[in-house]
């Protein structure tokens, strides 16, 4: 079922706006991530869609599930599944009773027979791979297991819309990775419409069909992960989606100068700030005619698929981060304290109003 929001806003007392009027459309069967720093309004938006918070009356926003206007429908009648960050399992009930809860509180007319409930709960537990834990209490399960129970519980009523509030936020790194792949699989198998909140860009980009990046109660951009990363709409999105190196200087006659560093750029005269992703920073033994950016290696971390190298220089306000392939790392024979030159592969620049972007390829 599709979700359509128009002009949904929220403010809390005099504390200010938690959500500027937001409009958003999610297609049936889509998995959308709401990504943003804390305080960006992503959880508020999710809770409004769930019906756990009421949106402001003015502007009179609407929430539609398919053709059904649910703006004034109570949370218990919205037919959503909601997964909480801290699982919110009923600790006095067994795993089985937790998952069965939604079915057992249906009005008697709609309630399945107890035999059918049992069958359905066992199918759900099988799906979340917890069929042997039916008679355990939540306190006897690990965090990852509890979150799977919580998911099974939310899915028991076959909701059209599944909402997840930082579902993996309380779990450790390895379990999160497993669980998010597994969530993606489950989503593809069952085909419900999902919206999930996260502050972890990697998680959002890996799992979602589309990601909405939020800040200060606004959706800054909503796009596929690929488009988001390649063509960020503004500087906030660019900076939020990954590590960024800053180069500030003065452009004169097509050359940007910053202390002893120079870089040829096709830009008009005046102060300039260029942004580079770590993988766009190439390290070399010698400068090129276009770029003379001398740096010193301050730290090397060869763990993982690529080598992370921290570099510093007098002309840099903050140290830079460069990521290298292991082959390049070995070829350069990098060590701490070594003096090298940076050759930018490409750089990004956002104009003063922070909405436009130009992206010339350089050197």
């Amino acid at each position, binding site marked *: 079922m599709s979700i359509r929001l128009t002009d949904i806003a929220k403010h809390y007392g005099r504390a200010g706006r938690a959500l500027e009027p937001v409009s958003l459309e999610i297609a049936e069967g889509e998995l959308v991530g709401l990504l943003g720093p804390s305080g960006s309004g992503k959880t508020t938006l999710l809770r409004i869609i769930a019906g756990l*918070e009421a949106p402001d009356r003015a502007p009179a926003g609407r929430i539609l599930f398919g053709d059904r206007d649910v703006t004034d429908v109570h949370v218990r009648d919205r037919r959503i599944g909601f997964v909480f960050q801290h699982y919110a399992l009923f600790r006095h009930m067994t795993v089985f009773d937790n998952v069965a809860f939604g079915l057992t509180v249906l009005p008697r007319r709609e309630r399945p027979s107890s035999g059918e409930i049992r069958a359905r709960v066992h199918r759900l537990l099988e799906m979340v791979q917890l069929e042997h834990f039916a008679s355990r209490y939540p306190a006897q399960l690990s965090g990852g297991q509890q979150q799977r129970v919580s998911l099974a519980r939310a899915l028991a009523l076959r909701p059209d819309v599944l909402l997840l509030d930082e579902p993996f936020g309380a779990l450790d790194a390895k379990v999160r990775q497993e669980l998010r792949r597994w969530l993606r699989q489950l989503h593809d198998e069952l085909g419900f419409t999902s919206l999930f909140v996260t502050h972890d860009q990697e998680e959002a980009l890996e799992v979602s069909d589309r990601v909405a990046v939020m800040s200060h109660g606004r959706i800054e951009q909503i796009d596929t992960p690929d488009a988001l990363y390649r063509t960020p709409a503004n500087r906030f999105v660019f900076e939020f989606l990954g590590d960024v190196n800053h180069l500030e200087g003065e452009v004169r006659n097509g050359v940007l100068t910053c202390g002893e560093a120079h870089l040829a750029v096709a830009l008009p005269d005046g102060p300039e700030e260029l942004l580079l992703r770590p993988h766009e920073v190439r390290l070399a033994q010698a400068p090129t005619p276009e770029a003379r950016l001398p740096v010193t290696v301050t730290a090397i971390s060869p763990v993982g698929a690529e080598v992370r190298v921290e570099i510093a220089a007098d002309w840099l306000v903050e140290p830079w981060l460069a990521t290298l392939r292991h082959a390049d790392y070995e070829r350069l024979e990098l060590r701490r304290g070594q003096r090298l030159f940076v050759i930018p592969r490409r750089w990004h620049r956002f104009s003063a109003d922070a909405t436009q972007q130009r992206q010339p390829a350089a050197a």
Partner: protein
Amino acid sequence: MQRVGDSPAVRRLLVAAAVLLAALFLLLPLVAIFAQAFSQGVGVFWANVSDNYTLAAIGLTLFIAAMTIPVCLVFGVALAWLVTRFQFPGRRLLQTLIDIPFAVSPVVAGLVYLLLYGRNGWVGGWLDAQDIQLMFAWPGILMVTVFVTSPFVARELIPLMQAQGSREEEAAVTLGAPGWTIFRRVTLPNIRWALLYGVILTNARAVGEFGAVSVVSGAIRGETMTLPLHLEQLYQDYNAVGAFSSAALLALIALFTLAAKAGLEWRIARQEVSP
């Protein structure tokens, strides 16, 4: 945010029911005490309060409370320090034992003291031979009052000192502070409000204890009658206004206790947030 039972109808119904019941059940008796005490005017109330026997009862009651508080204070602080700052076998048992006075009926408490220290008891018999009488005299009243009030200070301090942990005191030790200085300069400022609240509770109970005291007092007018015993006597003598005049004095102490509690809880809460 929505929670269960937040719909206006449910909320209004439950609040109304709670307020109505509390007003009838708790507030009305409080009002009635003062209404009865002043039912024949301030003059009669004053005459009742300044009656010699009443004054003697007030004096004894205040004396007992004044003696009880330091004893309970020393015990409460020592016990709280012991069970929250040290690990030793029997620690849990000790914590359970101090709750005995809460579980024991006050009449039973009075009785066991009477049995031990009365003329027929093994300690009392010996004391009697030395011409020392504890029961049916103020020392007996003091002893049972200490018994029934002994848990209050410790009960207030233990949870707080447990929550605060001993890191600050350990820091003081590493800085070379001697024992009493640690207690006075580090521990005491952290627990002073809880300590004060414990004292106020001790005072309220010491002033108002009835069952245990009535067993050991001997009810000698002007000598071993505390204020609660005195008002009982007046009430049995059909002097309702006199009884309620004394009751009003005790109710004032109760009201002071409630106000102090509200104030101190606020301070303790504030302290826990920003230690």
